[in-house]
């Protein structure tokens, strides 16, 4: 095989190379040892668990929609900011059967400045072991019904829930 690069070429690249890692192609879902990326569907062993997972995913969709409305973002604008697909955001907000992908959840957590591990559990990407968050998420979703804008009560509920996620 003819190598097209030379030692001089590499020396120049090294001078300009940013201090960023270059790993590509790894299956991140293998890290189940710390309960990450382990879908509740896998660990749920009875219909009640499945129902609860569905409720949590619904709560996650409501939560994302409320955060988006709070920040006056269209779905398209949020998709661009978070570098995720519009179709996936629509599914997250509207379809409780939809399972968000780990990267999407992490990107949304970054945009809304929520700790990504909490978002993972809310979204159903990771197994939720924290009862408090689950209970409060379900309460939050039950009381929130904003479609196009947030009223004062919904704004307050959202703020309280974000605070809870920060503390929990």
């Amino acid at each position, binding site marked *: 095989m003819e190598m097209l690069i030379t030692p*001089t070429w590499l020396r120049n*690249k*090294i001078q300009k190379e940013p201090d*960023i*890692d*270059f790993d590509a192609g790894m299956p991140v879902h293998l890290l189940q040892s710390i309960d990450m990326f382990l879908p509740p569907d896998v660990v749920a062993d009875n219909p009640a668990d499945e129902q609860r997972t569905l409720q949590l995913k619904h709560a996650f969709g409501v939560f994302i929609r409320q955060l988006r409305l709070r920040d006056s973002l269209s779905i398209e604008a949020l998709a661009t900011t978070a570098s995720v697909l519009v179709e996936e955001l629509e599914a997250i907000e509207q379809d409780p059967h939809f399972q968000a992908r780990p990267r999407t959840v992490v990107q949304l957590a970054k945009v809304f400045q929520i700790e990504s*591990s909490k978002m993972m559990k809310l979204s159903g990407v990771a197994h939720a072991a924290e009862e408090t968050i689950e209970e409060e998420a379900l309460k939050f979703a039950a009381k929130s019904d904003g479609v196009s804008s947030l009223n004062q009560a919904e704004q307050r509920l959202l703020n309280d829930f974000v605070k809870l996620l920060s503390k929990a």
Partner: protein
Amino acid sequence: MRESWEFPLLNRQTGKEELATLYTPIADNNVDDFESLWQPPMIARLATIKDHDELQAASLQDIYWKWREKQQARSNRFDWMSFAVECGGETQGLMFVRTVGFARIDSQRNLPLIYIDLISAAPWNRNGFTDTPLYKGVGPLLLGAAISLSVNEGLDGRLGLHALPQSEDWYRQQGMTELGTDTAHPESLVYFEFTSADAQAYVSST
């Protein structure tokens, strides 16, 4: 037959160059290094990690990659090739590529390309793993080798890969075209591709 080329890497601790060797294909000693040198510090670090934020920052996603099985399963196959970078008596970087991928950028859509299945640096060379990474240059060396392979295979330098989230910026800065999140990928990673022109400019640039 195993081929090899010599290149300099920068030892960041000493500020001096050290002679490294790029090999194709990877050999048993490279897999041994992964299991005996790379994995133990990664496993030790994993034990201290509590959540996804820390994990992503620490660049540990390849901790359970099955290099030995992949090496055995893919050896003597024409559709897989592998590369290893050795320096200081240890393996500093590893890469598996598939020689039968297909391009997605409109200007070269469906033309064959080299797909990088996995590219990885030893944990002590990773910015996310340690505050004092050792060798610099493993990334461009492996990427340059993949482009060389693409040209040698008659694929004009075309190259594709799925980057991990913490590495997306690196590929942007190398001049690869970002095609957005790939919904077909199991982890929904962002797909990057080198056009023939951009790849050849990359290996020609000084």
